[in-house]
């Protein structure tokens, strides 16, 4: 009861600011040009104080909230870990449908953001003038929080992809670090032939990984224009990836180990899995969860198809967004601004996250830091370069979380039976098209 009342009070205190914000966001939906408000209302809300609820599962959230409350003692942040990715999205979706129960601020992964932005569940942060932060973030992450002319969050972490490899296993089997995918496939064959207990990598069918790989290969399977969606897993880029990855699947060159399981961590430590192509956020996981691999692992740029032009893709990464249901959106926006544009960034980096803020991506302290786990290698030089080499122009589906949830039922069969990724992706495409049309989108294939 008292919380509700204090919320109401806080709301009244910034009623003016909130009213301004509502006015602005209403303007943004009618005009074609991006509406730009100012940050004054956000500053006023911070000064007025109040309380907000924040849903997140990021390990640094607790420390960040504590640091924020220390800096702004009149703001109370009710931090709730409402579940990890899909679980949280289910709850958010339900709360949005029910019209109440959503938090003020929520962590949302980039792939899921369009879904919430499109259903008008999120506040366009342009209404607080956050559009002017564009220059402060890497181009690839800013592109992820933008949807149309709206800015629906400030980027937190980014995951430009790189090749993590077990130097010890590579050296022992006389394998050079592959620069092209052709070399990578050759290395997979050579390694498994020399030592049948070892595999180049593992992949039991992860939709996020598959899409990142298609992204890097230059594929554009999804085209989204309002409620019109095009799905095409038969473009040249996608085919480039499937032709390459099929060789690993059908040659049984992938370790049969489920990602993120105890077996997987074990396999990373004992060399069973000797390389990973994954996001730049991986080093923290190596340090905390794969102690056995210390001193053995190293980082190299992601292999490419031509071996000439460096190109990579994003894998994973989250943003924090303000929900339209928030009774104090200006204060919520202030929290998001602090989280990903001010004091919240350092605790995030310290917990092993990989930033998306250009200031940190170019600061010598970050770039030239030697990582003891990786034998003293300055891994951030590779990883920050990767963040500049992300292929532009990628789009996710406006219902990507559903699509990902049916990946294993469709494309996943290709991994199990070795029936070819093209057929698997065609099945995935079919279910994506069907579901989208049922949901009121106009979805066409090809």
């Amino acid at each position, binding site marked *: 009861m008292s919380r509700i009342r204090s919320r109401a009070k806080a709301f009244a205190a910034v009623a003016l600011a909130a009213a301004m914000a509502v006015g602005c966001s209403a303007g943004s939906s009618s005009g074609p040009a991006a509406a730009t408000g100012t940050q004054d209302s956000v500053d006023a809300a911070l000064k007025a104080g109040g309380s907000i609820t924040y849903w997140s*599962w*990021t390990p*640094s959230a607790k420390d960040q909230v504590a640091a924020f409350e220390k800096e702004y003692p009149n703001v109370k942040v009710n931090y709730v870990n409402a579940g990890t990715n899909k679980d949280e999205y289910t709850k958010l979706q339900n709360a949005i449908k*029910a019209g109440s129960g959503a938090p003020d601020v929520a962590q949302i992964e980039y792939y899921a953001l369009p879904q919430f932005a499109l259903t008008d569940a999120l506040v366009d942060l342009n209404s607080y003038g956050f559009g002017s932060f564009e220059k402060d973030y890497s181009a690839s992450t800013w592109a992820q929080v933008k949807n149309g002319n709206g800015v629906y969050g400030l980027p937190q972490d980014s995951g430009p992809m790189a090749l993590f490899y077990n130097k010890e296993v590579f050296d022992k089997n006389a394998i050079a670090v592959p620069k092209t995918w052709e070399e990578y496939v050759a290395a997979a064959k050579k390694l498994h032939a020399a030592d049948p207990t070892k595999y180049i990598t593992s992949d039991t069918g992860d939709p996020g990984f598959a899409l990142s790989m298609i992204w890097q290969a230059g594929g554009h399977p999804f085209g989204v224009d309002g409620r019109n969606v095009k799905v095409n897993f038969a473009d040249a880029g996608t085919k480039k990836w499937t032709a390459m990855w099929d060789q690993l699947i059908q040659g049984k060159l992938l370790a049969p180990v489920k990602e993120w399981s105890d077996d997987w961590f074990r396999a990373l430590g004992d060399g069973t899995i000797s390389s990973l192509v994954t996001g730049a956020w991986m080093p923290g996981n190596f340090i905390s969860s794969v102690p*056995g691999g210390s001193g053995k692992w190293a980082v190299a740029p992601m292999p490419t198809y031509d071996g000439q032009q460096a190109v990579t893709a994003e894998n994973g990464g989250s943003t924090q967004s303000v929900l339209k249901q928030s009774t104090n959106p200006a204060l919520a926006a202030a929290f998001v601004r602090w989280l990903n544009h001010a004091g919240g960034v350092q605790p995030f980096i310290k917990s092993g*996250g990989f930033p998306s803020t250009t200031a940190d991506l170019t600061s010598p302290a970050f770039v030239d830091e030697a990582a003891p786990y990786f034998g003293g290698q300055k891994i951030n030089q590779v990883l920050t370069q990767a963040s500049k080499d992300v292929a532009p122009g990628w789009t996710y589906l406006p219902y990507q979380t559903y699509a990902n949830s049916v990946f294993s039922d469709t494309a996943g069969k290709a991994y199990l039976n070795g029936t070819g990724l093209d057929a698997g992706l065609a099945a995935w495409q079919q279910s994506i098209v069907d579901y989208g049309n049922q949901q009121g989108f106009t979805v066409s294939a090809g």
Partner: protein
Amino acid sequence: MATLSVTRPKKSRTLTAVMALYLLYTLVPLAWLVINATKTQASLFSTSGLSFGGPFALFDNIAQTFTYNNGIFFRWLGNTLLYVVVGAGGATILATAAGYGLAKYRFPGRRAVFAVVLGAVAVPATALAVPTFLMFSKLGLTNTPLAIIIPSLISPFGLYLIWVYAADAIPDELLEAARIDGAGEFRIFLTVTLRQLVPGIVTVALFTVVQTWNNYFLPLIMLSEPKWYPLTVGLNQWSAQANGAGAQPIFNLVLTGSLLTIIPLVLAFLLMQRFWQSGLSAGSVKQ
């Protein structure tokens, strides 16, 4: 009953082999759980799944499970107990009263109730979760214990079971005799009927307890604050910590927590199976 059979059943090798396989199939996961709950996180990653290895860390794991994250496991255990005692207990009482009423009293609309109950048995709880959420959200009950307890109170299957059981187990003559002796209907229910129904009630209690104890999807949808989670959802949250950027796997605590979670259920089965067995055979012999 065994004494009634005249010929000893023939031994079947095939059947024995199948049962042995089934036993293995049932026990191996349990053995795996027990074995791995004794390992530290590090030795989980370095030893094979079905052999002991590394330091014996069971007690250390238990201590950690109870203290991790300010002892949230205790809170989840308490929540689960609350949901089970109030939810499953309430469901048993309601099912007993309603089942008995439907079996022994004639009133208009009885057939309709029968149809509704049978229909309700057929609808999976998962399909009802989201509509229930929307309804509870309108009532302002989401994210409270009531959101878990109220749906748990309804057990159409339990009601049906008691109904069928009461129809057979309680002779109408008994009720009539009690009425002639001047007992009111409520007193008959408490002093005469309940005792007759014990095997049925225990069976229903066991079903609803197991169902509520293992309830996962409903709390997952209804609750957003970890402080109201039952063990199932809480343990899944611990398990999910191993995923993605900044992962903090605590597999040893997930395993130990799971082991601790099934102990009360095993105890409940051991204590109640006596009643349960006699409950299952009810109606098989002409009285």
